[in-house]
């Protein structure tokens, strides 16, 4: 890696550049790609340039990520730029390494315009990446002779980091060859597997630095599977598949869901109350669609859970419930005496979605 410092203000950026010595690169630190295109990466020949670029980049919105941190590093004398990554190929069920002599641009573009420029290698996780495999791989990518040795070492290290770190993706772009003949990493991106946190307790710290939608943070704190969307119908469902289907159906009948929210198989009062609170805190929500299919959890338990949750949370938006599956009739009779203009019930998923969308529109017309 190049020498560099992380900074949080324009002043810090300028001081870092003074310590490192110009020229430097001024780079936005956000959890997304395409920073260069968005104006988040600039070359600064002088301290004045650093001041100007840092002022522009702090607060810049890159694909919904606001820049709060900037990395200042000594500008490298780049002779060539390469690309290297490891990820899981779900189809082959093996690790996939990709290496290209055409780095520095988005790899998706290379893959589309010049797929032969990417050398791929499939690695059986039980045997791993050997030095010999890495050497042949570098050859097949047509990296120049002088870069080969350095590239092999970095690829072997990168594979270790990918496996030991339980990463979904590790990507170096660009991997550079300097005019002195050194190979080193100029920029990298890592995506970690949340399921591996029991092996990496330190990841909880990274997680805190994630720039998340505020609604997602609240839901995450309650252990709910939540993804924020742009619509006005709040969605609560049990099971990831059903929650996805619910969002789809809301869209299909002409509305738009405010979120994806999976409360899991159970649906007891406590979880339901937590889910309702998260939805309730979203000012865009104009109606709520609760879609529950009782499997082993019986309909009457679900119904009692909903009633209890409603007593504990003050909900503003009208609610439509669709309850089906095991003992659905019993569950529906428990809900019946509580029904009103703001607590409705519908027999099918489609009808419930339609009702929820109509209610959201009504609120808009007010």
């Amino acid at each position, binding site marked *: 890696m190049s020498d560099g410092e992380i900074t949080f203000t324009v002043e810090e950026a300028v001081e870092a550049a003074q310590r490192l010595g110009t020229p430097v690169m001024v780079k936005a630190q956000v959890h997304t790609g395409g920073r260069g295109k968005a104006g988040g990466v600039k070359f600064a020949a002088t301290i004045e340039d650093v001041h100007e670029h840092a002022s522009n980049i702090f607060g810049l919105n890159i694909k919904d990520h606001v820049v709060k941190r900037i990395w200042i590093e000594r500008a490298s004398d780049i002779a060539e730029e390469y690309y290297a990554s490891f990820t*899981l190929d*779900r*189809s082959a*069920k*093996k*690790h996939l390494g990709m290496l290209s002599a055409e780095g520095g641009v988005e790899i*998706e573009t290379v893959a589309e315009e010049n797929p032969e420029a990417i050398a791929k290698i499939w690695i*059986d*996780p*039980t045997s791993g990446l050997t030095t010999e495999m890495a050497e042949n791989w570098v050859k097949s990518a047509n990296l120049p002779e002088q870069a080969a040795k350095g590239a092999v070492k970095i690829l072997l290290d990168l594979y270790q980091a990918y*496996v030991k770190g*339980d990463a*979904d993706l590790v990507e170096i772009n660009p991997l550079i060859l300097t005019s002195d003949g050194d190979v080193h990493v100029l920029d990298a991106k890592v995506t970690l*597997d*949340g*399921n*591996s946190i*029991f*092996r990496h307790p330190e990841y909880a710290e990274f997680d805190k630095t994630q720039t998340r939608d505020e609604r997602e943070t609240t839901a995450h704190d309650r252990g709910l*599977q939540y*993804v924020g*969307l742009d619509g006005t119908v709040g969605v609560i*469902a*049990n*099971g*990831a*598949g*059903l*929650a*996805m*289907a619910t*969002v*789809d*159906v809301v*869209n*299909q009948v002409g509305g738009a*869901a405010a979120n*994806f929210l*999976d409360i899991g*198989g159970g649906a007891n009062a406590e979880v339901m109350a937590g889910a309702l609170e998260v939805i309730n805190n979203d000012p865009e929500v104009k109606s709520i669609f609760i879609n529950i*299919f*009782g*499997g*082993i959890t019986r309909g009457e338990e679900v119904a009692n859970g909903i009633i209890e949750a409603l007593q504990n949370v003050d909900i503003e938006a009208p609610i439509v419930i669709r309850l*089906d*599956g*095991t003992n659905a009739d019993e569950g529906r009779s428990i809900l019946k005496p509580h029904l009103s203009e703001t607590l409705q019930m519908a027999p*099918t*998923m*489609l009808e419930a979605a339609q009702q929820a969308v109509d209610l959201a529109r009504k609120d808009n017309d007010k």
Partner: protein
Amino acid sequence: MSIFVDENTKVIYQGLTGSQGRYYGLLNRDYGTKVVAGTNPRKAGEEVEGIPIYANIKEAVKATGAKASCIFIPAAGVQSAVLEAAEGGIEFIVAITEGVPAHDEAHFYNHLQNEFPQVQLLGPNCPGIISPGKCNIGITAGHIAKPGGPVGIVSRSGTLTYQALYELKEKGIGCTTCVGIGGDPVPGTSFIDCLKAFEEDSETQAVMMIGEIGGSAEEEAAEFIANNMTKPVSAYVAGVTAPPGKKMGHAGAIVSGGKGTAQAKMDALRAANVRVGLNPTEAGEHMVDIIAELTNK
């Protein structure tokens, strides 16, 4: 007939002494599944409601002759539980556990392929398998499924599977076997494994398939259907409106780099003459039509 399991399948529960394992293990036994043993190295010699506990799979297999196991072990222990089962002589492993790291899944999947090619792994992060009236391994509510066929079901989603079983039952249609392959990035059993088995199963006359965003398993299934299936298929794919780059509840349900969209999957399935519903109910209605056409032939 049924696929992978039947009324004679004996099952060992790895994690029967834990709360989830005990709850579902006993429910499965009540359903009629031959739950013959549990394993726990610290509780060997004890029993759970009459089901004997052995120190390990090898001893449990020796004592019972079971060829199937069901894993209710916390995520950190799933890798060693899967390998223990395979090494102990189990040929059909059902891993229910959610939250297993993708690297572990890739590792034990390849380990089984290399060393134990005869072993079929289902899951992890799946609801299990039910052959209604015969055998239920996992967390599916048995009573929502109607025995007898003629429909086989294969699905990446738990609740949508229950929904499918329920809707078919409401319309008087039974199921030969319902396989939940789970929503993780490296499922042990694929759509194709199940489609192949259903194609060969004499009792199954049609197949319902429930997919979701992420990966390319549905596209691969579509290709298989076009080239190898004579039986009609209906399908639903969840996540049409899912935003890119977000994991939708399941670890494997993610649209990344423009790949794995519901639209691409539905297009591929339609091109393979699969009747694709825009919601689960519509997919169920397609199946009702298919069965009616088969009956009138």
